[in-house]
């Protein structure tokens, strides 16, 4: 390692290392020596012995600030149900992985990619009885079992809202069963175990109903993120349509997959769904070519 690399490695560790603050507060000279900082450089750093702590605070303030802003509702619920949990998870994320994106706004996505499997494992362990349903110690408060679904939906609302501008749609024709349909972007269908879309935003103690939900999350013409709850069959049809299959084939395949007869009721329901999506600006028409 060059001297520059050693210095930058030391500062990065001082900023993101889990126990670094306690370590360099207790023995800055030892901390610098442990990172191979040459003695003459260490001397310069020791001249401002408390300033490394300032950088640690500045760095962490920026990262935690954007997470708190973009996952604002999730944070409020974690604070209500499992105080300190988000901060502990951020500490772990910074220590073990750290942000990789140059875009600060994408840090919450990276955090959730780190946190979701860990939270899910804890929730599973708690429900299996391998951990107490209550707090299993001051370090591990019980998590609400719906928190990962809740966080993922909140993050998706943000990412759909800021997703890049889509390319212009292809030439359009009238909707017919033999043609693939054209939809606006961005959009995504997601499935959750909990009806987190129904939870009042301002009631941190409200719990979602435990039932599977299929949601279409899309951006409207005014750039607002919208959520439409779908029946399982409607979600199955739309998933096939979004993949580019023609309308007729999408309906046949979806009914087969869901064990549902393709009857008049389904045809009428699909017509209503497509009309609704047309009014919402999600369905643009059918591919002309």
């Amino acid at each position, binding site marked *: 390692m060059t001297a520059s690399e050693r210095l930058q490695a030391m500062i990065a560790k001082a900023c993101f290392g889990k126990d670094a603050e306690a370590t360099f507060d207790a023995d800055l000279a030892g901390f610098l020596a442990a990172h191979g900082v040459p003695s003459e450089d260490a001397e310069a750093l020791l001249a401002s012995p408390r300033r490394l702590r300032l950088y640690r605070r500045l760095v962490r303030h920026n990262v935690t600030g954007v997470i708190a802003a973009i996952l604002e509702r999730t944070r409020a619920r974690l604070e209500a149900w499992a105080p300190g949990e988000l901060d502990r998870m951020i500490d772990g994320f910074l220590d073990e992985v*750290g942000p990789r994106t140059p875009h600060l706004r994408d840090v919450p996505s990276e955090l959730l990619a780190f946190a979701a499997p860990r939270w899910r494992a804890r929730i599973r362990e708690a429900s299996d009885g391998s951990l107490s349903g209550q707090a299993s110690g001051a370090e591990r408060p019980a998590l609400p079992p719906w928190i990962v679904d809740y966080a993922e939906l909140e993050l998706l609302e943000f990412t759909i809202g800021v997703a890049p501008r889509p390319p212009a749609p292809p030439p359009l024709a009238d909707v017919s069963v033999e043609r693939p349909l054209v939809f606006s972007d961005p959009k995504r269908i997601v499935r959750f175990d909990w009806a987190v879309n129904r939870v009042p935003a301002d009631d941190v103690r409200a719990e979602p109903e435990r039932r599977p939900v299929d949601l279409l999350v899309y951006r409207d013409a005014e750039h607002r993120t919208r959520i439409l709850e779908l029946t399982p069959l409607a979600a199955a049809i739309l998933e096939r349509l979004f993949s580019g299959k023609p309308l007729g084939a999408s309906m046949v395949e979806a009914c087969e997959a869901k064990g549902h007869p393709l009857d008049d009721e389904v045809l009428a329901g699909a017509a209503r769904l497509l009309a609704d999506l047309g009014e919402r600006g999600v369905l643009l028409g059918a591919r002309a070519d």
Partner: protein
Amino acid sequence: MKQKNEITGVGLGLRWEFIDEILERKPELAFVEISPENYIGRGGWYDAALERAMDVWPIVTHGLTMSLGGVDPLREDYLADLRRFLERTKSPWHSDHLCFSTYGGVVLHELLPIPFKRSEVARVADRIKRAQDAIGVPLAIENVSFYLHPGKPEMTEAEFVARVCEAADCGLMLDVNNAWVNATNFGWDVDEWMRTVPLDRVVQMHVAGHDWFTEGDFVLGERPADLSKARGEMMIVDTHGNDVAAEVLALLERTLEKTGPVPVLLERDQSIPPLDVLLAEVRRIEEVWNRACARHLRQSSGRPAGAEEAARR
């Protein structure tokens, strides 16, 4: 590398907190500055706001994560995205900071200091040249606020800035507030600092507000009555969360008298006041700008006061 600035006067950093209102009111501003990191790869409302801003004001860009002083390789995906963004916004130059912000692939999202060493001059200048080639517009580097020397300095900050600019043949984004903050925190002569940096390379200046904090526990405090006795007890952090200090405006004025009509930008990122308050601060800076540039014109033309208009014609 000297820049021919078509943009001049006083601009404002565009921020989400007031973007709707400012786009509605369209106040007279010489230019607005944006951070590409806030827009690249982003659609929807943000993208639409950028389109609207581009219709109203000239845009200049100021980046945050190029990590010109870093030891990680420059991120080619970021530079390619940035080049496309600069083509779209038609920014006449792009600036980023003389610092590091990544290490080991981890992005620290802060402007972290590099040591003022001879070996760093060549290393960083080489990165600046390569970044400049990659983005396709002139690149200017900004002097940052820093709070510790991350290694034994072999020269002053101003000498380091000057040598890097010379070696990289790049522009200087002169942050007047940062210069004053560093000079006050470390106790050096800011006018000597200004005499050392290459003012002929300045393409743009920044001014911003700062806050005073207690040393050690970093609690927000009051500005000390006697700045000369504050060191060791209080320090300044470059928060961009306050009005521009009188000393910084005075330094701006002295510097503009030397540089002439270089564009100046007001940055505000925290405790953002109502838009009218921000615009009033822009107007105060414009008064400074007009006064200083008129003096510069008199000095450079050698004509008596009152002859500026004729000289302009």
